[in-house]
């Protein structure tokens, strides 16, 4: 086990009181495993990984619970220590490669800087390693590409450069937050293919966030579904797609228009919109939108035990 998150709660102090954006999230990531996190906007998927990365810097944030990386506690760790870990042992790929790269330095400079920060190598060696990394992520003519600025590259190439940067120190854990959302489908297919190859060669564990269940099916070993800051279902990919147990997961899968076969007259929908975190419903957060709500849902459901974990009272109620 490389990462163990236990009862993670993140709240923000606001004018209207404490807003809890993550409420008791627990999960583990094994060595070399790809854990997918799916959910809609505001479900807390990005906040979860920002907490893992130690990137919640808002002074009004309150982080409780435990995040253990290879046994070391990350919650409350000094920024100095965290910096040594980040980029070296845990690396992150962001959604928008344009904002993840600084526009005023060349790609090569940015990759070499990271190598020099974490490893005792000469500048020339770092530069050479940057070229090798760009070649590895499939950027054509890497010895020329190192001299390019981010704006001179296309979206797909930029995302490759960001991936190259994340791989500099061969991290044990790679966090990818919607890495293909900003890309076209044909380029997305290239990047997913690349991530799969890199995962096989480097053996890093990956936490992969997306709202696209199709992308998830391509990459993840295990999938965790989040709703309103809570985990509602977690299972292996095959189990989740073959037998989704939580009404939210099921509804999410059904609301995607099919790419093959008969087109339905109307799509299945989930009524309403995700709840505001300021004003969460009592009991099950999905209750007000759920078609199978019953009396028990006034209480908050807890996750059932593995392997197929579901936070729903329908399980076992029958």
């Amino acid at each position: 086990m490389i990462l163990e998150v236990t009862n993670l709660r993140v709240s923000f102090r606001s004018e209207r009181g404490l807003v809890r954006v993550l409420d008791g999230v627990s999960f583990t990531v094994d060595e070399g495993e790809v854990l997918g996190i799916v959910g809609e906007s505001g479900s807390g998927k990005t906040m979860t990984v920002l907490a893992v990365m130690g990137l919640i810097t808002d002074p009004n944030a309150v982080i409780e619970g435990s995040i253990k990386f290879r046994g070391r506690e990350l919650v409350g760790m000094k920024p100095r220590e965290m910096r040594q870990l980040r980029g070296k042992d845990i690396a992150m790929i962001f959604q928008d490669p344009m904002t993840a790269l600084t526009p005023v330095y060349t790609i090569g400079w940015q990759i070499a800087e990271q190598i020099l920060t974490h490893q005792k190598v000469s500048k020339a060696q770092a530069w050479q390693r940057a070229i090798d990394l760009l070649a590895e992520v499939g950027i054509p003519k890497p010895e020329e590409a190192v001299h390019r600025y981010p704006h001179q590259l296309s979206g797909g190439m930029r995302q490759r450069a960001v991936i190259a940067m994340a791989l500099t120190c061969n991290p044990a854990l790679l966090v990818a937050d919607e890495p293909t959302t900003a890309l076209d489908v044909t380029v997305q297919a290239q990047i997913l293919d690349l991530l799969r190859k890199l995962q096989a060669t480097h053996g890093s564990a990956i936490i992969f966030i997306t709202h696209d269940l199709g992308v998830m099916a391509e990459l993840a070993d295990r999938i965790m579904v989040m709703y309103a800051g809570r985990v509602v279902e977690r299972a292996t990919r095959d189990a989740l797609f073959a037998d989704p147990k939580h009404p939210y997961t099921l509804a999410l899968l059904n609301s995607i228009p099919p790419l093959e076969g008969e087109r339905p007259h109307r799509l299945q929908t989930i009524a309403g919109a995700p709840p505001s975190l300021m004003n969460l419903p009592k009991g099950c957060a999905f209750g007000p939108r759920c078609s199978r709500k019953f009396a028990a849902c006034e209480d908050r459901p807890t996750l059932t035990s593995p392997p197929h974990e579901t936070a729903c009272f329908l399980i076992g109620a029958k």
Partner: protein
Amino acid sequence: MTALYEITNLSKRFTVGSRFSRQGKRVVQAVDGVSLSIQPGETLGLVGESGCGKSTLGRCLSRLYEISDGKLVFDGTDISTLSTAQMRPLRRKMQMVFQDPYASLNPRRRVFDLIAEPLRIHLSLPDAEVKSRVAGLLEQVGLLPDHAQRYPHEFSGGQRQRIGIARAIALEPKLVILDEPVSALDVSVQAQIVNLLADLQERLKLTYVFVAHDLSVVRQVSTRIAVMYLGSIVEIGDADSIFDRPSHPYTQALISAVPKPVNSEGRKRIILTGDVPSPINPPSGCRFHPRCPVAQDKCRVDRPTLTVANGRTAACHFPII
């Protein structure tokens, strides 16, 4: 059946850069000789990657952009060269819904005024009539009457898109051009809007041009689909045949690239290499040839035009079907 909208050889060029920049002024051929005919009551899906010109085409069709070349005949009127003032009465029959419901609604006006504006401008109705029409429109798009007194920021993304749709259908147009109407929405909300659009189309006998990059959504809503690449249509046909048996290699690659939640057996993914080339300096011959898995010598020099073969319309020298 006479076409609602007949588009012949439409082109749109943009000039980029200035004479002071290093490369000087350059011309982007964003839409390049597109001919289309839109039938009343259908939904024409326009798909393609970013930069393929699908949004520009949508905006040319609604005459938000001046067109560079070509002829547009909408509902029997040649509108290719009409001035803004001359276009105004026609706007009643042709409305647009935009991608970003956050940007397309004036944040300082109440929902009532946003929806009432087209009614006041075009119909000069008495206040009481406007009021009841707005209430009716809100109901049609699934909002409550008391929502009328609120401001756009009080609504979620899906609700804002409903407001945009209410405004677009207020004048009972014949044609609605939808530019990525569900791309900014979450999956669960996206399905609601897709269904709403289908309901409205049935009830009001609307014709849609649906611009989107999400292929599964386009398949769901479209009667016919036009696939665009670098400013031109490379394949056009009815939605089912485009998806089940694509004729152009680009269409095939595009569809195969979409990740599916359900594992389908025997599906081979075609991964295209490289990116979409720049429309400033498009490749010679067939514009898709540098990325095409089956390109031959002829494709490098000779640009294919849309031709009908075996009941399929594609711009390819070596179509799959």
